[in-house]
């Protein structure tokens, strides 16, 4: 029998130990370490995208009606989180960040809950959307029908440079509008919408927005492959 590590053992006996003296010497996590979630409710618009993309079902969104709007509470259960950063990636308003704080120790369940509530005002709560509702789809629908006949007629090139602004006016409430001259009705925006406020019919070539549900997160705009959505 031979002792291959004797030499190493002796040399290490006289060298400095390679220990991090952790509890006595604090250690910072690596710069991009994904630790405890920080949530800024003031930036949140309550789109619910994070809830949809979370693999561990760690995020819950609750809406409680309040005077003049609703309270939106987002709760992150770190005990169910995989710290994959997807929620922060998908958040359009950077309301979620993963900090480098790794000390996530709990003796009771509340220690691992990150939560925040923000109040969302509904502009003229019920009546306006009700009034606007018939108008908006109509406005959206009529150009669609026109576009269905116009768009194929080789006017695509000039329309791309000059037409978009006159063709559709952006809404004043920051919600998306579809430019039918560019839209190919791929339904990507409808699929991406966290609130499912967009309805696209591929056969009928219609694009409808339920402005009541829309929170104006802009996901549809970034998702659109043809830049047809204007906010």
């Amino acid at each position: 029998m031979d002792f291959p590590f004797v030499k190493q053992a002796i040399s290490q006996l006289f060298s400095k130990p390679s220990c991090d003296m952790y509890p006595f010497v604090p250690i910072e996590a690596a710069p991009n370490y994904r630790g405890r979630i920080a949530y800024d409710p003031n930036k949140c618009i309550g789109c619910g995208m994070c809830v949809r993309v979370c693999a561990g079902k760690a995020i819950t969104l609750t809406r409680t009606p309040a005077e003049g709007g609703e309270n939106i509470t987002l709760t992150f259960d770190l005990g169910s989180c995989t710290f994959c950063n997807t929620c922060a990636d998908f958040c359009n308003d950077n309301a979620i960040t993963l900090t480098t704080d790794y000390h996530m120790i709990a003796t009771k369940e509340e220690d691992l809950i990150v939560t925040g509530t923000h109040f969302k005002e509904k502009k003229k709560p019920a009546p306006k959307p009700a009034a606007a509702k018939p108008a908006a789809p109509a406005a959206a629908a009529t150009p669609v029908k026109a576009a269905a006949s116009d768009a194929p007629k080789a006017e695509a090139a000039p329309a791309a440079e000059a037409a978009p602004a006159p063709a559709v006016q952006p809404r004043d409430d920051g919600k998306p509008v579809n430019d039918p001259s560019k839209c190919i009705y791929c339904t990507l925006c409808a699929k991406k919408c966290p609130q499912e406020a967009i309805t696209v019919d591929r056969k009928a070539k219609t694009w409808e927005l339920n402005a009541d549900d829309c929170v104006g997160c802009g996901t549809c705009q970034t998702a659109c492959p043809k830049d047809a959505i204007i906010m």
Partner: protein
Amino acid sequence: MFKKTIIESTGKSPWLFHINAGSCNGCDIEIVSVLTPRYDAERVGFKLVGSPRHADIAVVSGPVTKQSLPRVLRTLEQIPEPRCIVTCGSCPQSGNVFRDSYSVCGPLSKYVHVDVDIAGCTPKPEAIMDGLLLAAQILAEKKKTGNQEATLPNPYAPEKTAEEAKPAEEKTEEKGEA
């Protein structure tokens, strides 16, 4: 005289027993890495033992699958008192990505009293050290009070709860003196 020594020693020599309840092996590797030269948990008295009868702290990793549940519970029962149960990683706390699977029996806290949860997927070895050291203190507290449900204020709780915990800490100190 000896009782005081025993209580002090209990906090200084916690022996670990690691139970894999269907873990993906991530947490298992990190638990072992806590014992490597880089982190060396032995310098604060931790030791990985092979039999639950020798253990003080049981570290459970994995989402507690249907197959492992009876074995996990039986192993935990075999640990002599005072004992601490620590969950490592998100899985035993909630099921994490395996939640609602047909083969997962849900959080461990449904079946036994869990003393410390270490969140993370997987937790950083330093976080595991934090959790185990807290568990060791809880162990000493359990020996001191004789209460198997005894717990200590969590120094790593988010700030709000930390403020609430402060008066509680003072209260326990007063009780200890009385």
